[in-house]
Structures are given as structure tokens and as C-alpha cells.
């Protein structure tokens, strides 16, 4: 489906391009959102990536190439946006998960804490964790996308998970002190 849409979009069919956007918008937007922690910035980033795709559609050879290209451009742009942002990485109210009941509530709380802890990690570690756990990419592909050695990716993954655990534990202590 994407292959056909790609061919049609290459011939100037905007409807086909809109189909490509619908297919990959969640991937691009989520890379931006999880990395930047800002919904508006993530949407700007996603729009910039798709605009760049629209202007360079001729260079895309296949659906696999398209996915790789989109991911690579999104990662680079997210890092650029992050460096420009330099401000607080607090999550906006609209980004917090909807409250739920029972186990789902615990999951939502944990997810929120994890995202907040992730937002405080160094940019490279953060992006590596996003590519590993959001995009389900292996260390080799992550290394290729970020242009770093595979060993760096592996150690960053290990260190990133440890830091997340440490940050969550500290957060829990703060909550306990606040209550008792």
C-alpha cells in the first residue's frame, strides 16, 4: 500500500501523500514527543519532517527506504529541537495520561513517571532508549541511525535503564517524604 502511495505521491498526488502521512505520523510525532516532552514542539517537528519528505519525494526509492529516511530525519530534527529548546522539560498538563482505575491507573502512573525520568536523561541516552523501546530497533540499527559505535549504544542502553531505575527510586522516596 505504501509502495503504491509513494509512486502516486511522486507523480504529484497529494491524496497519496496524505496516506503516507497517516501511516507514519504516529511514529514521527512520538519520537518528537518522547524526546522533547512537548506536544506542540513534537507536532512542529513532525510537520517539518513531512514537509521535507514532500520536497524530496523523488529521492525515496522504496517503502523500507521511506521508513528509514523518516526515522533518521526525525531523530536528527528532534536532537536539533532539543538543543534549541534548552528550557524546562516538565511535561505539560495535556500530555499527562488520562486517569484510570485499578491496574490501569498504576500503569498510567508508572508510564508518566518513566517518561518524566526519561526526559531528564542526557540526549543521546534518551534517544537510544526511545529508538529501542518505542521503535523496537536493535543496537546495530540504532548505531547506524545515530552514527555512533554499536558498543556505545549497548552501554548507553544499560546505563540509561540503570539511571531510570535510580531516578524512579529517588522519586518514590520524595513521594514517601511528602506523605509521611
Amino acid at each position: 500500500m505504501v509502495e503504491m502511495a509513494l509512486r502516486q505521491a511522486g507523480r504529484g498526488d497529494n491524496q497519496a501523500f496524505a496516506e503516507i502521512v497517516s501511516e507514519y505520523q504516529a511514529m514521527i510525532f512520538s519520537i518528537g514527543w518522547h524526546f522533547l516532552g512537548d506536544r506542540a514542539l513534537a507536532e512542529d517537528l513532525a510537520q517539518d519532517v513531512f514537509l521535507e519528505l514532500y520536497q524530496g519525494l523523488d529521492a525515496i526509492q522504496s517503502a523500507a527506504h521511506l521508513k528509514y529516511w523518516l526515522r533518521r530525519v526525525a531523530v536528527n530534527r528532534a536532537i536539533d529541537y532539543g538543543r534549541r529548546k534548552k528550557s524546562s522539560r516538565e511535561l505539560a498538563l495535556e500530555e499527562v495520561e488520562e486517569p484510570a482505575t485499578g491496574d490501569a491507573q498504576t500503569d498510567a502512573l508508572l508510564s508518566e513517571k518513566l517518561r518524566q525520568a526519561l526526559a531528564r536523561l542526557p540526549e543521546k541516552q534518551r534517544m537510544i532508549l526511545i529508538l529501542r523501546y518505542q521503535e523496537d530497533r536493535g543496537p546495530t540499527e540504532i548505531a547506524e541511525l545515530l552514527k555512533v559505535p554499536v558498543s556505545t549504544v549497548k552501554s548507553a542502553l544499560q546505563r540509561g535503564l540503570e539511571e531510570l531505575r535510580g531516578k524512579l527510586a529517588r522519586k518514590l522516596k520524595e513521594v514517601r517524604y511528602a506523605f509521611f
Partner: protein
Amino acid sequence: MHFSEDDLRFALRRKDPGAGFTQRLMARINQAETNSFASSKIETRYSPLWLPLKLRAALTPVLIAGLAMAGWLGIAQYQQLQKRRSGELARRETMLALRITTAKLNHVFDRVRASRKAKSGESSYENNP
């Protein structure tokens, strides 16, 4: 608070940017296309190539008039030069002719003088033998 890799996967699951994202993007693309079309029109109108062409068209009559004037002046000057040269040549020829005539006249005078002298010598011999 402990978490597993699955918890992290769940926390980092993909999220949709929400309704209207595609429409907003397509509107932005259309806007960008309109802007680039307008700027390309402006570029065409005022492009460095186009400007000299317009200038060239405006300057062509002036250039032609200038060239015609220069040609006319050149021809006039050439004709004047030719006249001066032919005058000079005529003067030289006249001078040469005069010199030749003078030389011939001198020669004639010399001969007349010589014959007169000869005649006067004969008569004095006749008078005083």
C-alpha cells in the same frame, strides 16, 4: 518503584498527533507551494538574467544610434585622410614635375649659353684674327 522493559515499552508506545494533523500539514504544504510559486515568479521577473535582457531591449536603439554615429564619423575621417593623402601626393608630383622642368630648363639655358659663347668667340675671331 520497579519497572520492566515491557513497562518502558508501554510508556513509550506510539501516540497519534491527534485529529487534523494531516489537514494542518497539507495546508502548510499548499501554503509553502504557493509561497514558492510566488517567489519563483518574483525571481523570474527580477532575475539577474532577465534584468540585462530588459536593459538590452531598452538600450538597443541607443546602441544602434551610437554605432551609426561612430561609423559616420569614422567614414568622414577616413575620407578626409584620403583627401589629405591625395593632396600630398599631387603636391609631391607637382614638385617633381617642377624639379624636372627646372632641370630641363637649366640644361637648355646652359646649352643656349654655351652656344652663345661659341658664337661670340667666332665673331671675335672674325673681327680679330
